[in-house]
């Protein structure tokens, strides 16, 4: 019944080969062994997976296990010592930091974009319209220039950092209708929107591809470029948190994420590296 495990994001690579020929920043992991457990924010997962794959290919003695669960889960599990790194797509609250002695590492910036099904004609909204759609005041696509069909609103649960940022910066902490469907990760949001022609939802900009269509908000399309230039305002930091000062493998992993190679992975996956 643990949510993280239900979400089917458990990812274990055990590679025997040692391809040290082209190592670069992976030299950090020379001679290390052990298991590193990571959980939390689902926006982080593509980067975590790619980093883990490279590290485990370089050094087969290291095992990295990645689970989802959402930012709240990440913070809670790292605080209780269940995982080594807890990811969150929002800054942990002061209360959480004090309670768990969290140390935060912000390694990328990510936008949260409104998305609809690619077949939808509506590709631009004003902020007021967005707030009205999510509160349920506007409930038919026709009134905003689309087909005559009810709008299906999709949202994330309270543990989601994506939701927290979207709610604060896009909805101005406005109400989200009780009729909204709940999905449990950025990936699940993307597949729900891509299969429902009358859907509206929000995902991390890193997740936007041809299966969903981004919606311009106040004339600005949520793209990597617009987030980078600061034109698109609904953005947040991606954090990896540890309980206390990290050491050993945990520290090495975080150093790797901040290394040129790690930062390159972040930008390849659609985020804005911090360095």
């Amino acid at each position, binding site marked *: 019944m643990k949510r993280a495990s239900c979400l089917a994001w458990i990812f274990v690579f055990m590679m025997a080969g040692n391809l040290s020929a082209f190592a670069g920043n992976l030299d950090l992991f020379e001679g290390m062994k052990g298991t590193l457990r990571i959980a939390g924010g689902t926006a982080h997962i593509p980067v975590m997976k790619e980093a883990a794959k490279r590290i485990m290919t370089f050094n087969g003695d290291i095992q990295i296990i990645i689970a989802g669960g959402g930012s709240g889960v990440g913070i809670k599990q790292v605080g209780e010592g269940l995982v080594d790194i807890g990811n969150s797509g929002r800054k942990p609250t002061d209360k959480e930091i004090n309670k768990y002695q969290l140390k935060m590492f912000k390694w990328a910036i990510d936008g949260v974009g409104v998305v609809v099904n690619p077949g939808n004609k509506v590709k631009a909204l004003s902020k007021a319209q967005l707030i009205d759609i999510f509160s349920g005041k506007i409930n038919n696509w026709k009134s905003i220039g689309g087909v005559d069909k009810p709008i299906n609103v999709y949202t994330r649960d309270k*543990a989601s950092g994506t939701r927290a940022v979207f709610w604060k910066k896009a909805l101005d902490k406005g109400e989200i209708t009780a009729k909204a469907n709940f999905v449990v990760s950025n990936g699940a949001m993307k597949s729900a929107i891509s299969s429902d022609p009358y859907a509206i939802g929000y995902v991390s900009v890193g997740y936007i591809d041809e299966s969903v269509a981004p919606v311009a908000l106040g004339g600005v399309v949520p793209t990597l470029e617009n987030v980078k230039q600061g034109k698109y305002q609904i953005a947040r930091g991606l954090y990896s948190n540890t309980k206390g000062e990290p050491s050993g493998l945990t520290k090495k992993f975080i150093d790797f994420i901040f290394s040129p190679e790690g930062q390159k992975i972040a930008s390849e996956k659609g985020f804005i590296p911090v360095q």
Partner: protein
Amino acid sequence: MKLIDRSIEKFFWIAAVLSLSITVLIFGFMVILGFPLFKGGQFFELLSQPWLPDYGTYGIYPMIVGTLSISLIGLVFAFPLSLGCSAFISVLGPKRFGRVLKKIVQMMTGIPTVIYGFVGIFLLVPIIRELFEHGSGMCILSASILLAILISPTMILFFSDSFDQVPKPFLDAVDALGGNKAQKILYVILPYSLRGVITGLILALGRAMGDTMIALMIAGNAVAIPDSVLDSTRTLTAHIALIIAADFESLEFKTLFACGIILYLFTTFITLSVRSFDLMPWRRK
């Protein structure tokens, strides 16, 4: 030998006591952790209020409605299906085909619910959405159809087992009187195995209420009280899975114990009714 006998007896006794005490302990654990709710008298308010965490209202009434509607409608779909299937396996169909069908049904009991959920998202949900043109297709109807498929094998196997227990002379008597197969089922087999049918029905209801994955993936998880079977809804189990990530200290998290207690009481009630049904003195001929 005597020593071995006695130690085996002891072992089983300890196993029985252990499993019993775990059940009791789980209930105790939920009551103790949910105690702040009882003390403030909020427990009964929770049962009737909506879920509006932004306004400080953490009622679980919509989830109770969700759980009951999905599982009962699922049962309505599954019952005739299962009854027909098991009649076919035991009486109506050709013997060999019945055996093959029964093997398939047995295999179905082992399919993880997440597989049903997955198939449902890609096959059933779009069909329901386009067919009824109401909402996202993630709704009570979709979830209960899938739940019906999930609980049917349990019922089919239970029914056909109790059908097989009808004494052969009874069946021969029907044949001797010139009755056909349908009459055999309607007037002899069903009345004789009524008890087995009802027990199977109640067990399947318990399974339907306890299921998490299908509701979580298919029902849409909206917190509004549903107005129709095409509305999205959230069950108690899906609610627990969704809120478990909230802060330990928060009131949101504490109300989960209320959900747990309600679910526990539902299933206990179901199990007890099965037991009392078994103990009932009447017996049909």
